[in-house]
């Protein structure tokens, strides 16, 4: 084990090469619905138990199933109203379980990236062949169902190994959502010097953290989202920033949460300087225009 992941170098958030988003926009805004399948009776990973109680632990299981049965459609209609294409963090097996959801997202030209096979199968203790198997499964299954080749990755239940980023880059993925160290894209150091980046996802703005961990009220969630946006929008005039709202339909799709939440999307998409986009498009634009400048600036500032 190492004392530092070694995935990026220190790079202070000041005087960086200026980012401009397409159309001269100053904030890239993306919404990442996590569309997940949790198993009722998954095999045991030695490092982490899926459910606290003996089988059948139906409360946490059915809590999440609500997202697919009920919440997803409501969340999707809300994003439609705001002309937001979701960037789907997908439990890839859901393609087999619930193809109707996938079809609806394909029709809306949403982006798909992988969030593992199931959110109850963790990467801890996988060997390289096993980790390759889930990446290959993700690439092939998503391609077959949607015609898209995945560009991004959010580790299933945020479980990683030391080699995850190297493998993702080797398979041609371009971005990871697993790093929370910055408000702008940054280079990620991977084997073979491949061009690979971190696109800011968010735990702070993530409904699972705000509701499941911090237990805040639905209306306060809206206030927090607006405050987060205001500051990033202001700073984006200096150099483009990224704001992501990661969602889970089992949480935000509850009526008492979705009712106030709409106001946050009204507010954010009501600003002219916002580029409403997807994770892949942010990575593409940034890698093509700013990756080299970033690498040079990081090296210069380290000297």
């Amino acid at each position, binding site marked *: 084990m190492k004392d530092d992941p070694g995935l990026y170098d220190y790079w202070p958030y000041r005087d960086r090469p200026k980012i401009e988003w397409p159309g001269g926009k100053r904030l890239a805004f993306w919404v990442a619905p996590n569309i997940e*399948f949790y*198993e*009722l*009776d998954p*095999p045991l*990973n*030695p490092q982490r138990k899926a459910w*606290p*109680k*003996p*089988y*059948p*632990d*139906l*409360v946490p299981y*059915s*809590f999440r*199933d*609500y997202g*697919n*049965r*009920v919440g*997803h*459609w*409501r969340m999707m209609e809300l994003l439609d109203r705001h002309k937001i294409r979701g960037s789907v963090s997908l439990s890839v*097996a859901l393609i*087999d*379980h*619930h*193809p*109707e*959801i996938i079809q609806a997202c394909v029709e809306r030209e949403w982006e798909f990236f992988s969030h593992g*096979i*199931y959110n109850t*199968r963790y990467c801890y*203790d*996988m*060997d390289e*062949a*096993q980790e390759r*198997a*889930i990446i290959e499964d993700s690439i092939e299954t998503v391609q077959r169902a949607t015609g898209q080749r995945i560009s991004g990755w959010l580790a299933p239940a945020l479980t990683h190994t030391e080699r995850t980023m190297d493998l993702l880059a080797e398979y041609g993925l371009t971005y990871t959502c697993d790093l929370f160290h910055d408000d702008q894209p940054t280079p990620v150091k991977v084997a073979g010097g491949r061009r690979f980046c971190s696109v800011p996802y968010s735990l702070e703005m993530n409904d699972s953290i705000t509701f499941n961990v911090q*237990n*805040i*009220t*639905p*209306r306060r969630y809206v206030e927090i989202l607006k405050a987060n946006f205001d500051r990033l929008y202001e700073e984006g005039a200096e150099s483009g920033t990224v704001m992501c709202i990661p969602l889970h339909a089992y949480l935000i799709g*509850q*009526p*008492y*949460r*979705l*009712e*106030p939440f709409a106001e946050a999307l009204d507010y954010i998409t009501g600003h002219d300087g916002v580029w409403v986009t997807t994770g892949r498009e942010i990575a593409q634009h940034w890698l093509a225009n700013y990756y080299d400048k970033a690498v040079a600036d990081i090296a210069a500032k380290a000297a």
Partner: protein
Amino acid sequence: MALDPSYLRYDKRRYGMDHERYAWSMLVDRPKVNWPNGARIALWLSVHLEFFPLNPEGKPFKLPGGMVTPYPDLRHFTLRDYGNRVGVQRLLRLFERLRLRASFPTNAAVALRMPSLLRDLAGHELVGHGRDMDHPHFGGMEEGAERSLIAESLAALRGASGQKVEGWISPGKSESAATPELLVEHGVRWFGDWINDDMPYRFETARGPLVALPHSLELSDRQILIDYRHAETDFTDQLLDQHRFLAREAAATGSGRVLAITLHPWVIGQPHRIFALERALEAILREPGVWNATGAELCQSWEAQQSRAP
């Protein structure tokens, strides 16, 4: 280091669910449901009457709300008991004033220890709720033991009230793999443990189907006021937002919806909290198209409309 190869085998990766308990379907795709008199919202109130023993065993796990300090934990025992003495009466007075009926998931221990309370619930619905809050149903429990727990729980309520008692909520919503079968075996028609839907749906057991009702875990005084520590006024807001959203969805889809509210008299029955519920209920009842239903009525209305489906 490597995981056992079985960890990357996905035997239940297929269309639908990874179990046989219910069919996969999205709410948006289902046939419309019409409530009586064209109502859009079925207002379903569940008030839990619970007994928390002073000497819990906590096996194989504790249920929420139980004793906390070393024995004898008088503070938690009496604060819970407050609900069954004072809080519930405050709620009953409110329901009487607003002409509302509620479902009361009731531990057998409450029925046996407080027979006069059951008489005070005349006109409301009793729902099976296990023996007490120290006897969870759980995976791996011996089937005979669970069978007698269910038989005893239902018998206590049926004996004391003369009601049929065809509904069930497991203590802590915890079940064994056999609970649904055992419920059917004991004349239960609907239950409310699974929290995956906003509408009733058909739940399969080896002894015939049950109706799963959308009994809420989330929209509960205990969850919001005690676990989340939100303010009382925030509880009111959340109840009203829930109603607003569901009423709009019902209007847009032309299908009824269920507004399920879960209450615990030891929480909401406190003098400084009852207003939060009172304000919400008053506001909801001023809206058109609200049908106050019990679990049995919801179940019956929904079931009667299913025969029309293919």
